[in-house]
């Protein structure tokens, strides 16, 4: 970049730079500024009000010594892993099926995407009712004559998180499907023709050629699903309130409860700082990797 005649960085694309000032400010003040503020105050003994009363790492000591936090992390891990895996796989399979030029494609697409248009609160309540043993799925099947049928995940501590997972998948998979479908439609027709000529089986074409070409769509879906996992809160509140016992507690709910129920801001900030740390731990290696790829490519 030794070109001496190039216009200065500032004056290039000046209008687009001005246009991006609000967003840049938002990013700096809200994201960086407020996050820093939160991290700083997580080292204080703030109770109902934020106060700079330094207590060192004691909030973190307490956090990692709390059963509820540990259970929350475990739940998030189970929910996150299953959600990521199933929503991506099922979403892709549904998109691939829809891509077979079937009839009523628009109708199916709308049906599958429809749950995403509902708020988590509605989804949570609906699934709470469906999984309720006294008037949900279990009752319907028993009324058909299968009286031994038991299906009440939300009342069983060991399975409650999977009940939440069902609702999450029902809501989230449609979006993944639509993004994947867009990715599939972006694949050049000629590739399909070429593979047909070469006699390569369809499933092999998908795995070896199409999926690598859909990188952009897959990453978009991955990021959207991953963020929805980290911040899952309203679904839990609507569906189980964290119960039975601590069986469906999640980190975001811990943060809210510490801040507003326990009136212990410091503890809430420490927990949210840990959540931020999880995101960074996942995000940084990935960004570095992506950046390197781009430079190489």
């Amino acid at each position, binding site marked *: 970049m030794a070109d001496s005649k190039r216009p200065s960085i500032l004056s290039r694309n000046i209008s687009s730079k001005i246009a991006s000032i609000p967003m840049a400010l938002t990013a700096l003040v809200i*994201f960086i500024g407020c996050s820093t503020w939160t991290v700083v105050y997580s080292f204080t003994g703030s109770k*109902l009000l934020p106060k700079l009363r330094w207590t060192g790492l004691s909030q973190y000591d307490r956090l990692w010594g709390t*059963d509820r936090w540990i259970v929350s992390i475990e739940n998030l891990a189970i929910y996150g892993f299953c959600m990521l895996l199933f929503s991506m796989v099922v979403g892709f399979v549904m998109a691939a099926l829809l891509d077979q030029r079937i009839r009523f494609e628009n109708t199916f697409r709308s049906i599958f995407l429809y749950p995403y248009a509902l708020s988590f609160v509605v989804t949570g309540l609906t699934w709470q009712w469906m999984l309720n043993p006294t008037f949900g799925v279990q009752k319907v099947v028993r009324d058909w004559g299968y009286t031994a049928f038991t299906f009440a995940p939300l*009342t069983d501590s060991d399975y409650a998180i999977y009940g939440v997972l069902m609702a999450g998948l029902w809501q989230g998979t449609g979006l993944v499907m639509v993004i994947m479908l867009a990715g599939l439609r972006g694949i050049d027709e000629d590739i399909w023709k070429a593979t047909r000529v070469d006699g390569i089986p369809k499933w092999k074409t998908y795995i070896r050629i199409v999926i690598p070409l859909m990188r952009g769509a897959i990453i978009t879906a991955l990021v959207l699903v991953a963020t929805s996992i980290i911040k899952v809160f309203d679904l839990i509140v609507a569906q189980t309130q964290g119960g039975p016992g*601590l069986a469906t507690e999640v980190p975001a709910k811990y943060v809210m409860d*510490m801040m*507003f129920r326990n*009136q212990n801001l410091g*503890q809430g900030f420490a927990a949210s700082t840990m959540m931020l740390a999880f995101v960074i731990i996942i995000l940084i290696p990935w960004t570095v990797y992506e950046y390197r790829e781009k430079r190489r490519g």
Partner: protein
Amino acid sequence: MKKTITALAMTAIMAAGAAKAAELEVVHWWTSGGEAAAVAEFAKALDASGHKWVDGAIAGGGGTNAIPAVVSRLLGGDPMGATQFNHGRQTEDLIQEGLFLDLTELSEKEGWRDFVFPGSLLDACTYDGRLYCVPVNIHSWQWIWLSNPAFQKAGLDVPTNWDEFVASAPKLRAAGIAPMAVGAQAWQSTGMITEVLAVAIAGPDTWNKVNIDKDASVAAGPAYTKVFEAAATARELAADISVTDWNLATAAVITGQAAAQIMGDWAQGEFAVAEQVAGKDYSCLPGLGVNPVLSLGGDAFYFPKNKDAETTKAQLELASLMISKEVQVSFNLKKGSLPVRGDVNLSAANDCMKKGLGLLADGKILAGGNIALSRDTIGQIEDLMVQFWNDTSMSAADAQAKYAAIIAQAD
């Protein structure tokens, strides 16, 4: 940061509806039928004095929704006329910030110390020797409500204490009756174990050592071992019936489906609505019939500092109205709680209420968890109790050890 935005938005919305002078906006979380009727008594009294009551009810039991809204408004410089809080330690920080009106002079002028009974109610409102809130009622936790027909059906006498009740459980079960009903919400099992079983079984002195002096060695000691063993028994006795809300558990006792519920005196309102007669249809044992002692919980109103002199005047008038004789009687009869004055006559009180008044008069009283412990500690205990209550693999000894650890770091 999401929080900050929510708080800002909340403040903005609230600011749009700010009250004019001489209008007092009162925030509270009494939204059920009986509660709303009780609040209406306050509103009537204030409107009669020439000011205007603007109702700012925010639904959500225990103020879970109201308190964050109130705090963000106070910090945002948009104070309401008055706001409910459970008196105790919830408001310490806000008082330190100087956000509440000092009521000391008013209380001295009217001699609140002379008639408020028991006097410890005012202590709960006092910070650094100054008074900041008006207590309006007394609620106590230490009651077990028993269904007389349920015991008759099982061919038993109505028990007179906890041990007799536990012994009667197999026969109740044989008669198809659930021995106990406990709602699934965290505060219910928490209150039952730490306020009721602890006071009744370990005794008031031990309870004070744990909750007031925060002596973890006592919490880990043999007296509390018995408490947690009783809690494990209660967990087993309550397994037959599954409900969420406390009033549904009370309803199970009213219909005779369950034989007993451990719940505060607010349960009495439910029996009253169902036209049950104390002593005939149901019985009550304060302190589980073992240690008849009541802890003092209850509600109080705080008056945020205001720049407007007219509003401040109206706030003081409302404070004095809330604690006046007439309003205390009309309010508490509707609310089903006990008045904070020792000099009023509640002739309409029933058997159980009279038992409560008798205990108050004898001074068999305790501070109550809300007053003794910070909201943070209570929250930690709730998390532990909900875990213990739902996870039958957690033993009484485990729960006790964790409880003692929380008490050790309680502030």
